[in-house]
């Protein structure tokens, strides 16, 4: 077939809108995008190859360096996989503290993703508001875990630091502060007429296409697919929550799903703090041999770890499937196609919240 494209338009790898290097090649006719292809491979470090043959004490720190934005969930899924494999019990207080750390991480990750989107559609004011709220969430994470980004908070059989009484007060009062802010910014986003023009009805991912591309996380939930692995997690089942689902499937829906999930996460943390059981935070245990496939819900979707360890707790084989690769596929092959303006290409790609460090490892 004869090619009818005008310009093959490359975006990246170094681009003002991209936080990480990725190249997006769009075949365009006029300003209409006919076809898009993603070129990955700028950040492949081979972390799974480093992990093989090392004891879990080292792999635990490597696991959270797969992705800096969602480091808590990488740590959590790896540690829960090791625990499930070796039959190590977790004290109830530690399980609740893990949920608090995970939800705080989800809040900061979603706010950063929405900041990137607002920055890409050149609405810097809202972006700066969101970054400011994110700093408060980062402060809470630092108070709870002792570090801002790479925390290594969870270890087999519990967590490393307890929540003191004054931390309890500070976390709940800060949540009271940021909740009205989040509500205000959500309203600003949903009612802003110019934001609506750049977001509503752009980059539509229908439910059929989302299923074809195996979209996960907020991208899938914005297209009407009710999928959230937190509903299968025992601690979350005890606390109780309902996944946020929207049916529009456009850029607006994806950003709104993240805003609503931040509000949902604040609710989860409040319920955790109210029902925080007393007792030990570490019960100990020995990591043994076994094979397991363990899943968890990262801020961007479903995260899968396949682990195989020997009797000394050394990782013999490991394979990781991160959520971003499916969302990038959905973004490049379904959302961007038919975009009527090249300015919408970057904002549509960013709205799927691609994390290249996760994808390539």
């Amino acid at each position, binding site marked *: 077939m004869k090619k009818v494209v005008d310009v093959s338009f490359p975006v990246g790898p170094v681009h003002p809108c991209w936080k990480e290097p990725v190249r997006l090649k769009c075949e365009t006719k006029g300003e209409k995008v006919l076809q898009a292809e993603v070129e990955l*491979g*700028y950040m492949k470090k081979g972390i799974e190859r480093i992990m093989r043959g090392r004891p879990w004490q080292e792999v635990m720190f490597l696991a959270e360096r797969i992705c800096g934005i969602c480091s808590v969930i990488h740590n959590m899924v790896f540690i829960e996989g090791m625990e499930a494999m070796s039959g190590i019990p977790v004290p109830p207080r530690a399980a609740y503290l893990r949920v608090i750390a995970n939800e705080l991480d989800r809040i900061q990750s979603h706010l950063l993703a929405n900041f990137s989107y607002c920055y890409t559609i050149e609405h810097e004011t809202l972006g700066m508001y969101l970054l400011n709220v994110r700093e408060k969430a980062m402060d809470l994470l630092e108070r709870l875990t002792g570090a801002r980004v790479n925390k290594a908070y969870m270890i087999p059989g519990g967590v490393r630091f307890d929540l003191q009484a004054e931390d309890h007060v500070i976390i709940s009062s800060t949540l009271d502060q940021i909740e009205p802010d989040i509500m205000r910014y959500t309203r600003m986003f949903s009612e802003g007429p110019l934001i609506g023009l750049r977001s509503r009805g752009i980059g539509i991912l229908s439910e059929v296409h989302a299923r074809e591309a195996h979209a996960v996380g907020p991208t899938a939930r914005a297209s009407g697919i009710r999928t959230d692995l937190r509903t299968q997690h025992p601690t979350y089942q005890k606390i109780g929550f309902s996944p946020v689902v929207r049916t529009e499937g456009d850029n607006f829906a994806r950003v709104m799903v993240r805003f609503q999930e931040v509000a949902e996460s604040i609710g989860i943390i409040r319920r955790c703090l109210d029902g925080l059981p007393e007792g030990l935070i570490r019960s100990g245990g020995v990591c043994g041999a076994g094979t397991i496939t363990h899943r968890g819900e990262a801020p961007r979707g479903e995260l899968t770890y396949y682990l195989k360890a020997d009797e000394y707790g050394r990782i013999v084989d490991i394979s990781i499937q991160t959520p971003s690769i499916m969302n990038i596929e959905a973004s490049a092959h379904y959302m961007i196609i038919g975009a009527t303006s090249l300015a919408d290409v970057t904002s549509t790609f960013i709205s799927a919240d691609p994390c290249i460090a996760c994808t390539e490892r």
Partner: protein
Amino acid sequence: MSLLQRVKNVVRSRSIHVCFVDVGSCNGCDIEVLATLAPRYDIEQYGIYVHNNPREADILLVIGAMTPQWEDKLPALWERIPEPKAAIAIGNCPISGCVFQRRDTYVSAPVAKFIPVAAEVPGCPPRPTEILSAILSLAPTVFKDFEERRR
């Protein structure tokens, strides 16, 4: 000192354009560089603008442990930045490779093998304040009297 040089000094002291390039990190340092934009740290009050465009940059922030894809691209990108320019290595990865510098990996740290690095900010990741103070303390040593010193 010529008048032109004095004018240039004044202008350059309050207008530093920053480009950051990720050459294979875990994303942790990227989000700390982005956090410097936040109103709490407010990088723009010092006249530093994060544009992420190498052609108008003065300072290049290099993040990451140098993957094979970047070995030819990073020197090419460095060539595109107009003089006067400086590179700052953010985090442990561009300095030593951090956890990625092991047997069987694809990385080839340090970044100083490929481009001249003027300053290093260690940490995994460094705090936004440290990144900010590194840029602020490096800028006068590079940009002040640049043409006069060169002559």
